[in-house]
């Protein structure tokens, strides 16, 4: 088979998969038709490849060679395997909402004593009722710009829209202060190679505060799997969301996740993403400042080795004046792994007094490790404060020697310096428990390494 055939192959295989499964996908009323529109939109552009600037370093025509069949609904064996995996990734005090192989699992989720004002439904329920979970439904806020509908702009979100089966839809009523963090866990147990298409949403009403953690984990003996996920976060006026995403998929997994975030006026969004798992992954976040005076702190860490490929891409769209954004990203890359960070900040003509800063640093632990850092600023307003920086390099030999001269074996000395390096990004997590949970996840990677 020549390469050209392979390129078309994956897209065609996805077309066949859609044709085969569409009648079994959940949804009534307008849903099937909307799925078809989304799929058409995906097909028009096909799988993203290297000649599309936003996907330059993550060429899915090369990296997504096969289309796996949809995951089967989990049986008792799957739930038992999931429970085991969950035990080692628990976050104390959090309300856990679990998806096993892409299916919401009520028996593994904490649904009791739900706070008044919090509503949790599954995506499946929503679709079966004929509703479509779209960013521009304006159920929460008037300020979200319909143009921000990512279903129309990114092929992988369009594919997700066409194929999505389940997820958790959370709504928090205005004024609520949600003390208990929400922890949405995706566990893959797959007895056979499988793909899952999930979509979740969190909508925070005006002046609410909430904490959300998303985890991607796998049971020990899970077969190879593909995750296609989308997360929609709406943070209404004066609301605050603290958000952490921990991607600890199994080493041969494939994970393409998108987050679409809409911020109302004076909203505050603190978000962090850690990627240690998956053979091939991309996490792309689109943040739209849709009200004045809001603030975003986003940070992330990729910890990679072997032949992993992980791409973290952040698009910040400063559409309105007086908003602040801070981005800190760190990559630690060993062996023949490849880390990608793309940070694009757009400051639109009206967005005067924007204050946007981005800093990305990569640590290369081997000669064959690769890190691509692509900070991009597109500034169309004239009264703004914007800046970015990018560095990459090896561990400082003089620091390593100092630690080794004090008795630390090489791997331990490296681990301590790596912790310090990523600590600068992890410190950006405002919530203490989340910071500790993230440190613990980073620690798991370091321990697996030595």
């Amino acid at each position, binding site marked *: 088979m020549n390469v050209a055939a392979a390129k078309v192959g994956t897209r065609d295989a996805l077309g066949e998969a859609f044709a085969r499964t569409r009648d079994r996908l959940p949804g009534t009323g307008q849903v099937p038709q909307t799925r078809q529109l989304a799929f058409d939109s995906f097909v028009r552009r096909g799988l993203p490849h290297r000649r599309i600037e936003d996907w330059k370093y993550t060429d899915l025509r090369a990296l997504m060679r096969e289309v796996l069949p949809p995951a089967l609904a989990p049986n008792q064996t799957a739930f038992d395997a999931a429970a085991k995996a969950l035990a080692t990734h628990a976050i104390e005090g959090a309300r856990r909402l679990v998806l096993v192989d892409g299916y919401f699992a009520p028996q593994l989720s904490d649904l009791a004593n739900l706070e008044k004002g919090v509503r949790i439904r599954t995506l499946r329920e929503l679709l079966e009722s004929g509703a479509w979970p779209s960013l521009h439904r304006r159920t929460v806020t008037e300020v979200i710009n319909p143009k921000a509908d990512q279903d129309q702009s990114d092929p992988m979100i369009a594919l997700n829209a066409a194929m999505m089966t389940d997820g958790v839809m959370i709504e928090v009523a205005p004024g609520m202060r949600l003390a208990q963090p929400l922890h949405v866990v995706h566990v893959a147990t797959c007895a056979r190679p499988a793909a899952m298409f999930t979509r979740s949403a969190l909508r925070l009403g005006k002046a609410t505060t909430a904490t959300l953690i998303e985890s991607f984990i796998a049971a020990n003996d899970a077969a190879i799997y593909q995750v296609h996920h989308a997360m929609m976060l709406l943070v209404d006026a004066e609301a605050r969301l603290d958000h952490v995403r921990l991607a600890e998929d199994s080493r041969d997994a494939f994970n393409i996740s998108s987050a679409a975030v809409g911020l109302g006026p004076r909203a505050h969004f603190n978000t962090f993403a850690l990627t240690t798992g998956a053979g091939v992954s991309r996490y792309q976040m689109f943040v739209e400042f849709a009200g004045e005076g809001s603030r975003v702190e986003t940070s992330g860490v990729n910890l990679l080795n072997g032949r992993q490929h992980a791409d973290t891409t952040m698009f910040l769209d400063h559409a309105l004046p007086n908003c602040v954004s801070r981005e800190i990203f760190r990559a630690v890359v060993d062996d023949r792994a490849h880390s990608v960070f793309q940070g694009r900040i757009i400051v639109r003509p009206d967005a005067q007094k924007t204050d946007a800063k981005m800093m990305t640093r990569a640590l290369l632990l081997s000669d064959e490790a690769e890190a691509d850092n692509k900070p991009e600023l597109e500034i169309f307003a004239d009264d703004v404060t914007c800046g970015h920086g990018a560095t990459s390099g090896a561990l400082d030999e003089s620091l390593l*020697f100092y630690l080794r*001269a*004090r*008795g630390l074996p090489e791997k*331990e000395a490296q681990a301590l310096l790596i912790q*310090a390096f990523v600590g600068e990004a992890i410190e950006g997590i405002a919530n203490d428990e989340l910071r500790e949970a993230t440190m613990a996840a980073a620690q798991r990677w370091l321990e697996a390494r030595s």
Partner: protein
Amino acid sequence: MSLLEVKDLQVRVEDREILHGLSLVVNKGELHAIMGPNGSGKSTLSHVIAGKPGYEVTGGHILFNGADLLEMEPDERAAKGVFLAFQYPVEIPGVATMNFLRTALNAQRKARGESEYSTPDFLKKVREVAKSLNIPQDMLRRGVNVGFSGGEKKRNEILQMALFEPALCILDEMDSGLDIDALRIAADGVNALRSPDRAMVVITHYQRLLNYIIPDFVHVMSKGRVVKSGGKELALELEESGYAKFEDAA
């Protein structure tokens, strides 16, 4: 058996030979001062003993308690009791001093097959030593040496020396960058650690330090060799005459 035996040591850095057949014997309980002008190879000797990468040993040997030191990794040397107090201790942002001290101490103990310190025992020990060296508690919470003054960095080295209880302490230019008060505190710290079980090698350019730390033996280095050895009076002689006549002798 001597604690440290350096015999006919020849060392290159890139294409340049720095040490041309240096010999030195240090026994338990002794304090040796190594003096010499800049570029005589004093720091190179300390780095090679500690195992710093980038030096090529082309001849001679170093035995530590009879074992071949040059075959050991730097961390093995530390666990066996070799301690180098750095001339320029590095700053390590993001690694809290307390965390660093505990990790290092426990790594050494583990390598020796000893049990790890419990947290309360460790804290008690660090606090005692820190107090004796006039090191404030908040310094221990900061990143290793981050924002420390020259004197604080040197005191942090001595703190580690006290904590790790090495058999051999090499102090590389401990006096550089210290004012007289800072020097006195550091010297008191070193003197407190002198013991019949421990040897020290003090490397210095100036005689001044030796007013506070009295050596048993003084060696003069020039051009990569020890050109003269003697008692503490040799340091005074150097102060009078300078290094010039020894350089001629080399």
